[in-house]
């Protein structure tokens, strides 16, 4: 009897230990995120426990599952890949023991090297206007002398602003990237959070489900006994 009491207290202690140890621990899930840096894509792979995937091969596929290339993570779990076409990509890494990390990147998330081409294409009509007005300027200036045509001035100013903006664009983009990077990480971490509410919600669902099952079985039994 005494021995039994010991067994119970040991087991109780183990339970207590397990629950105390478990408090600061997080879920063990694969976490991937990727974002455009300058001209390449940078991404991180790791576990939600904070361990990063070291020296892991990351394969890159297009949306049809064709392999486009591969890269490797460094000791911080960070990988880099330079896309060659403006298509949606899928990154995939096998971390072993049934852990597969996948991340899909849409075309509009790709680095600027492609999106700037798109922007140029959109701006083309605008450029043409500017170009035509500059040729107009060239032909008009000798006859008009010093008189300034307001429309021409407008065109010149807008051209100047455009070129200034173009020069600043990469600076602005990299500054925004720098500012937004911690947010990316925070959002990725937040997505992985198992909070008390959802755990309790899950427990509630389980009891609800078994309650419904209990009700159905009980009803069937009652109708059977009534007959």
């Amino acid at each position, binding site marked *: 009897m005494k021995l039994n009491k010991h067994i119970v207290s040991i*087991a109780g202690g183990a339970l207590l230990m397990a629950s105390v140890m478990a408090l600061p621990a997080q879920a063990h899930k694969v976490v991937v995120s990727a974002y455009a840096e300058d001209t390449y894509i940078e991404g991180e792979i790791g576990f939600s426990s904070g361990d990063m995937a070291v020296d892991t091969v990351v394969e890159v596929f297009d949306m049809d599952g064709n392999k486009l290339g591969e890269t490797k993570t460094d000791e911080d779990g960070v990988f880099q890949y330079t896309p060659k076409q403006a298509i949606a990509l899928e990154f995939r890494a096998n971390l072993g023991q049934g852990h597969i990390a996948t991340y899909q990147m849409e075309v509009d998330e790709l680095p600027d090297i492609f999106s700037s081409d798109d922007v140029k294409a959109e701006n083309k009509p605008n450029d043409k206007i500017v170009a035509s007005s500059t040729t107009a300027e060239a032909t008009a200036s000798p006859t008009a002398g010093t008189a300034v045509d307001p429309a021409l001035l407008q065109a010149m100013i807008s051209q100047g602003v455009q070129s200034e903006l173009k020069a600043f664009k990469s600076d602005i983009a990299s500054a925004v990237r720098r500012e937004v990077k911690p947010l990316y990480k925070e959002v990725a971490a937040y997505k992985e959070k198992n909070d008390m509410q*959802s755990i309790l919600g*899950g427990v509630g669902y389980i009891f609800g489900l078994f309650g419904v099952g209990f009700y159905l079985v009980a009803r069937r039994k009652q109708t059977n006994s009534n007959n």
Partner: protein
Amino acid sequence: MHIIDGALTNEVVIAGAALSVGGLVMGLRKLDMELIPAAGVLSATFFVASLIHVPLGFSSVHLIMNGLAGIILGWAAFPALFVGLLLQAVFFAFGGISVLGVNALNIAGPAVIVGLLARPMILRAASARSVAVIGGIAGGLAVSLTTLFVAISLGLSGETFVAAAKLVFIAHIPVMIVEGLLSAAAVYLIYRVKPELFHVMSQKS
């Protein structure tokens, strides 16, 4: 323990799903009214226990508590654990929907095996202490069987079986010990406080 979407080949996923459906049908038939409350509680226990992760060296592990579910529920452990797995996949993207069958088989399969082995022994046992010992061994055995099942499903999908098996098994030795102790304590408590539960299950198994 939870294999996620995309890690297994289609053949393994389909075979796992088919076997799990069989297990579910079998389990639901055995799930009688007296067992439903216990099944609900054990399902919730499993749900919470597998969300609590203990960091351990190169990775982290979590409790499973499938041994205890098997001892108390027998075949009925299958639907109970399946519900837990389903909700984990839906709420936390833990595991995955397409691999639900394989995961259910890997976790509920050992529960049923251990339950069928341990239950007759518990019913025959003379003292509370021997019941606790049987419960403890069964709890540990269920976890080690689960690691074996996981290694087999990874092995069938192309990963080297021996390496996978070793890794998963070694990582789960502490889990086996803790679960053994917990199962022993739980079975001991049931034997002391509510031995009718064992008789209910003996009639239904």
